[in-house]
């Protein structure tokens, strides 16, 4: 009787295993989607669904073995989630206390009209199962705070900031620093976006938002193009950090009215 490795060797071609063959393999050996992908990647091969990712099976394996926390599941959180589902990150933890409201429709990409009134994290879990069942998603409908941070950040390799206000972000930076976890900051406001790599202890967000006069960004609306661009940069930075590459810290300021992009490297 053939084992999964032998089967993969026989059925793979040109460095990858086709999606169709992978499904056959799952049925034949009683494997979950995730288990099947792990087998394929362990052999240095790519599951077909990832062959257009611009890296090799080894890097893809790193992603599948990563645990990421997305704090907030509104505009940025939706866009971040969708990207990780496509890229093939392993375990996704998503936290948000809210339900979807009509004014979210302009920019929160998870949201369909039929989801109005549903908890954002519930819709996130459904989307994850629909797009990429190889990933493991843990959703928590709660506020990120002292009482929830410990459990939520347990076992997390990297945190993505998808919060919608400054005080929560300052708390998130401290919570990540206390646990030695790098935070990929992203924020949007009107025609602007901002991303940064917050290394533990650097205090980058306290620096950006620390001036006493700053309480909140002005309510100028958030367009979906700003969401997509900002979340895209967050994820590209996160991939590089996960793959052990050196990145700057930023912050980088994105001006969509230009467009223009400014490296505001502070430290």
């Amino acid at each position, binding site marked *: 009787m053939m084992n999964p490795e032998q089967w993969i060797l026989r059925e793979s071609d040109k460095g990858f295993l086709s999606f169709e063959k992978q499904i056959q393999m799952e049925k034949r050996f009683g494997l979950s989607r995730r288990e099947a992908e792990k087998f394929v990647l362990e052999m240095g091969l790519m599951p077909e669904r990832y062959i257009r990712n611009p890296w090799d099976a080894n890097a893809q394996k790193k992603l599948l073995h990563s645990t990421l926390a997305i704090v907030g599941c509104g505009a940025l959180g939706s866009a971040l989630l969708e990207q990780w589902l496509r890229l093939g990150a392993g375990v996704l933890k998503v936290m948000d206390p809210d339900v979807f409201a009509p004014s979210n429709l302009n920019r929160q990409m998870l949201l369909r009209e039929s989801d109005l009134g549903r908890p954002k994290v519930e819709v996130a879990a459904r989307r994850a199962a629909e797009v990429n069942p190889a990933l493991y998603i843990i959703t928590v409908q709660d506020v990120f705070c002292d009482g929830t941070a410990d459990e939520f950040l347990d076992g997390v390799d990297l945190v993505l900031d998808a919060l919608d206000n400054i005080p929560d972000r300052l708390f998130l930076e401290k919570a990540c620093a206390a646990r030695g976890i790098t935070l990929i900051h*992203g*924020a949007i*406001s*009107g025609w602007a976006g*901002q991303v940064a790599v917050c290394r533990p202890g650097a205090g980058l967000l306290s620096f950006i938002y620390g*001036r006493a006069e*700053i309480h909140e960004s002005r309510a100028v609306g958030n367009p979906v193009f700003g969401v997509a661009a900002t979340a895209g940069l967050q994820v590209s930075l996160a991939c590089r950090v996960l793959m052990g590459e050196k990145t700057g810290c930023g912050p980088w300021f994105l*001006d969509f009215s230009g467009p223009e992009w400014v490296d505001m490297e502070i430290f």
Partner: protein
Amino acid sequence: MEIGVRLFAGFRKERFRESAMAWEAGMTPRSIAGLLKIPMEEVGIIFVNGRHADPDLPLLAGDVLSLFPVVGGG
């Protein structure tokens, strides 16, 4: 004295993107923001000559001030 001022994103609306105009001596980022009617609570990062600067830094002739809005939504 001439000071370059660069504004970003929403600050450009009904103002300008970049200007080099003459200001009275003794200006600071805070006083220029005030004269441009930009509330300081909307100003995030402040650069003078490409480096982070305090809002009360005295500006010198030829300096270039950049004002970035606070970006805190998501």
